[in-house]
């Protein structure tokens, strides 16, 4: 079995965008998440009007995936050969809290549609035409051992040729973090092994 490599890593944390561990863009630390997300969207000149309808979790995942997949040569890969395997600890609770508020007036369908954590994979799939294996896990902490083994399984036993995997999290207090990795057999400097998945937590 060929080795797998981390071809790219995008981290969003503390109002900063890191790509392959390097700080690339940031806004003032006192800006709220919504403002940060909008700034990232504009800074990277993303044009996708549905962005503004997304909830916070989807904006996080969508932006991270967009940066992850930029400049990617997808020529020899079919949409169903791309997998999305992601996890977080708060599920969609950030949006759930917002939906609960609408219950005291008129329940909002546009908010309710985002009250499932896997919708973020859905939004990433739609924007980037991805149709392969997809699962969303809820974990207290990012289980790097399990995720790395499971992604390897997909490459070995399904038609997966490319995988977006990682952690997309925002909690009810709006603490957020994403660590998204692009995995393939294309050789790179970073092997896809447990110890190279360095997800640190800002609320520990």
């Amino acid at each position, binding site marked *: 079995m060929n080795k797998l490599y981390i071809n790219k890593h995008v981290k969003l944390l503390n109002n900063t965008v890191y790509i392959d561990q390097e700080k690339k863009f940031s806004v003032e630390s006192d800006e709220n998440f919504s403002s940060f997300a909008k700034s990232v969207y504009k800074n990277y000149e993303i044009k996708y009007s549905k962005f503004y309808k997304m909830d916070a979790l989807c904006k996080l995942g969508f932006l991270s995936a967009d940066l992850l997949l930029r400049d990617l040569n997808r020529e020899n890969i079919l949409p169903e050969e791309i997998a999305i395997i992601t996890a977080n600890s708060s599920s969609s609770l950030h949006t759930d809290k917002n939906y609960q508020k609408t219950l005291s007036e008129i329940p909002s369908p546009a908010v309710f549609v985002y009250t499932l954590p896997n919708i973020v994979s859905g939004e990433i799939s*739609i924007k980037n035409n991805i149709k392969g294996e997809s699962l969303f896990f809820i974990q207290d902490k990012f289980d790097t051992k399990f995720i790395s083994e499971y992604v390897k399984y997909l490459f070995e036993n399904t038609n997966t040729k490319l995988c977006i995997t990682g952690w997309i999290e925002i909690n009810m207090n709006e603490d957020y973090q994403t660590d998204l990795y692009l995995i393939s057999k294309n050789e790179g400097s970073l092997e896809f092994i447990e110890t190279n998945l360095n997800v640190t937590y800002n609320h520990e």
Partner: protein
Amino acid sequence: MMKVFIGQDNIITPLGFSTKENLDNILNGETGIRTCTNTPLSSKPFPASLIDNTEINERFQALGDIQKYTRFEKLSILSIENALKNSTIPLSDPRTLFILSTTKGNIELLDDDLREDFSKERLNLYTTAKIISEFFSLYNTPMIISNACISGIAAIILGQRLISQGLYDNVIVNGTDVLSRFVVSGFQSFLSLSASPCKPFDANRDGLTLGEGSATIILTKDKSSIEIVNGATSNDANHISGPSTTGEGLFIAINNATKNYKNIDLISAHGTATLYNDDMESKAISRAGLESVPTNSLKGYFGHTLGAAGIIESLINLESLKKNILINTIGCTTPGTVENINIIQEKKDQQLNCLLKLASGFGGCNAAALFLKHE
């Protein structure tokens, strides 16, 4: 790669607290769907399949303190406990894993008025899974899949993959979802609930019916009469709440799950009875060349049980396989989907060996799992 089999199981719905009770009631043409009035779930009466709370508490009293566990947790524990009754799998063992499948867990705790004595910490799915896991002194940290309505099948597929790789010997998969004002109001805001019990695949279907349930399926390397052969998940890449009109994602999942198997005897469809879902499924089934395979939806018996659906419906149709009986799609009088498929409308004895279970969910996700009976 190891072969993976189905061990003990359990289903809890208004049709009973065991798989046998549920099956017997279904074979008698009973449904768990009733008109629900005077509940905190909705200001107007609506059809739903609700489990009697008094009965949950009465049964749980034999196991633990009814005040210490949420309704969701009590159901999950009751189901797992019943499945484990006749099982000899070692619980406090590193080779045993628990996977929880749920869409919303204890979400009703968001409502400050209803929250009683549970802290907001219980809203975290990993906390509630841990509490359930600790009840059985399970060794490993539980895994949790929250992937909309495909969660149940996805959990079964995950369990099969983990055992086949030799990582675990036994996997306890439990799927549970309870109804709350949160969930009911959401579906009402989508105008996707039928005013009467749902009619899956019917020409006049007009929406889904919600239900609650808990089901447990134990996957094991120990040989039994039912093997879980393969499974696959996929995405439509089309819309976050509307299914693809071409059945694209489900078609991909069916192909990947069925690969070399041509002789599928029974399809357990997702069949929610919305206009779009059932049309989409008929498209996907037809594209896969399976339009003459007897197909049912069980949502007329249970309603849509969300995170429990994939497991409840797999188990009932596996009973079909074991007993060689086709179960009819209650609620369907005249099939009418964009593609003609073979909807089972009457109970019938038939030799059955291979079951294909399908599921689709919000976010455009799809799943398919293949089961084989060994005589």
